[in-house]
């Protein structure tokens, strides 16, 4: 008689988010969130996870079928590796930790793959067979859906696009929040300590030329990444999301300028900040 809910957890470089999700991808509870960051460690995760789980369960009732967990980093069985934005979680076996805290059957997947899965099933990629989801935020992530299923690759490292070389360094040095600030400085912008991508966006909105140039450069670099994905995967759509996608109007013209007729295949995420949580839950939704 009780409806089934799927818990979704999204552990990112700035936020830990959680909600209950219905089988058709709708939020069934309020989305709860707490901040994370470079100092966020396993004890923080345990504490917040226990707290969030009990709060979500009180919203959604007892019909929780399973928990899906999206995390930054490369997800292999065993300890987390290559989590550059949450370095204190490297070496932590998230599956063991989450099972101990929540006592729920669980699946874990890279957060960008959760984003791609959510948008493919319930968002801007509905009805597509092949899709790339790219998250633009603290770092850059990429989830790939091939034939309606998440593509993981032979060592679970498919979509590690942040390493793609651009101007002799990993693309993530440019396609990230820090990359926007770097481009702003390179364009002659006066960026005191603590200025972030949002700050550069604000200055661009006020008409500052260096800030606008930084976003143009960012748009071209995102186009470079899209070109790479288009030539390899030939997806029906590329869905762009993540916190920096909010500054879309500042870099979309440059992105389209580079992609020309292929720009029609670039769409924007529809599920907003909930995409990661919905995608994590979707790992268990049949």
């Amino acid at each position, binding site marked *: 008689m009780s409806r089934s809910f799927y818990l979704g957890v999204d552990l990112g470089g700035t936020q830990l988010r959680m909600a209950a999700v219905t089988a058709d991808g709708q939020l069934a509870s309020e989305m709860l969130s707490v901040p994370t960051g470079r100092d966020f460690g396993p004890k923080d995760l345990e504490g917040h996870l226990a707290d969030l789980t009990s709060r979500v369960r009180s919203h959604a009732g007892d019909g929780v079928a399973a928990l899906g967990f999206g995390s930054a980093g490369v997800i292999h069985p065993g300890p987390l590796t290559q989590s550059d934005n949450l370095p204190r979680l490297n070496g932590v076996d998230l599956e063991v930790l989450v099972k101990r805290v929540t006592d729920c059957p669980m699946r874990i997947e890279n957060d960008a793959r959760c984003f791609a899965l959510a948008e493919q099933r319930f968002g801007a990629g509905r009805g597509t067979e*092949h899709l790339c989801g790219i998250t633009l935020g603290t770092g850059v992530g990429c989830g*790939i859906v091939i034939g309606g299923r998440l593509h993981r690759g032979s060592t679970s490292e*498919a979509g590690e696009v942040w390493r793609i*070389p651009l101007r002799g360094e990993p693309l993530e040095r440019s396609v990230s929040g820090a990359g926007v600030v770097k481009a702003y400085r390179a364009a002659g912008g006066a960026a005191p300590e603590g200025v972030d991508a949002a700050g550069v966006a604000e200055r661009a909105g006020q008409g500052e030329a260096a800030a606008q140039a930084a976003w143009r450069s960012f748009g*071209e670099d995102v186009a470079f990444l899209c070109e790479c994905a288009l030539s*390899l*995967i030939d997806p029906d759509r590329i869905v762009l999301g993540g916190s920096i996608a909010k500054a879309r109007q500042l870099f979309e013209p440059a992105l389209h300028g580079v992609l020309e007729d292929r720009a029609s295949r670039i769409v924007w995420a529809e599920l907003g900040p909930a995409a990661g949580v919905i995608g994590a839950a979707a790992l268990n939704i049949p």
Partner: protein
Amino acid sequence: MAMDRTEPFTRADVMTATALSAPTVGTLTQSLLQRGLLHDLGAGPSRGGRRPAFMEFNARHGFVAGISMGATRTHVAVADLRGERLAHQVLSTPAGIGPEPLLDRLAGATRSVLKEAGVRRDRLLAAVAGVPGAVDRERGIVLALAPNLRGWSDVPVAAILGRALGAPVTVENDVNLAILAERWRGAARGHETCAFIHGGSGIGAGIVVDGHLHRGDHSLAGEIGLMCMGLEHLDKDYGAKGCLETLAGLKGAAGRWPDARGGLREGWVAALFEAAAAGDAKARAAIDQTAGLLGIGVANLTLVIDPSLVVLGGALFEQGGDFVSEVRRVVARVVPSPPEIVVSALGSEASLWGCLLVATNDARARLRNSLGDASEAQGRRLRMTTGATA
């Protein structure tokens, strides 16, 4: 098809494999023996009881053809239903004529190879044409071909060749065929997620994901010749100058070696590598820069797809060890745990073998369908007479 196996078998083997009843298997094998799809091998030694009758699949019941079109050379071969090659010809790809006359000549070459193999034209069950370009496989249309074969757009290759050969024809991209062939009988056996990268006058990749060829939404997956190599290459002429094919294709390599500029004569690639080996610094730089760009292409493919193996084929990679080592070195700088990177085991015949593989699959599928109709009718009759339910 439980009887489509390499070793001889008995009716009892078929019953075990299919869970069909003895009378059904008896009727089926009788009909297949009559139609020539099975060979009767006579009775084997008794295992206690009646001596079992052995038979085997007749791989020469029908034949297939592969036509692998290259920018300069075209391979044509005929094989039996297991893909065993019976005859093979290599001809210069006719240049400067339109698609229809060219396809007409290739059909002529195919008939000549059939004759050489001693195969009657009505025994040709399927043919596959591999082309260096984008294809719409469902409709059998070549959308656009590699630079050396300009003037091709929306050519209904399957229909034209099919009419000329009197057999159904499938059209497929040559690099896609190459990775299928390498998985079948080359360097990629046992690899479920892998890629073939062709580096020659054109550059392209064939990608297999979880055992299936990945074609993409517009049959353009793996068209890495168009991969952007960085905004510094672009200036105002995006795509025409900054993509992998223009920078690392044969023309790109030639552009870095002054001695090649007199014209791309036959054998200049070998001459370039000889010059580098003899200490020509410009030749060495041209090779290393080209290998570096291809290495970045391999690295980008690896980061997106994560294959367990990348097979390299085409004129540049065939020049051997140093070039491939340089590619590996660049990949290892970008990817922390790179996949195995090897040179094609099938060389210039990789796509041709892919044609034969796909053609045998097509031919077997058609045989199965025609048998399926026949055996279904038999099954119905059997059920009517015995009252058995399926």
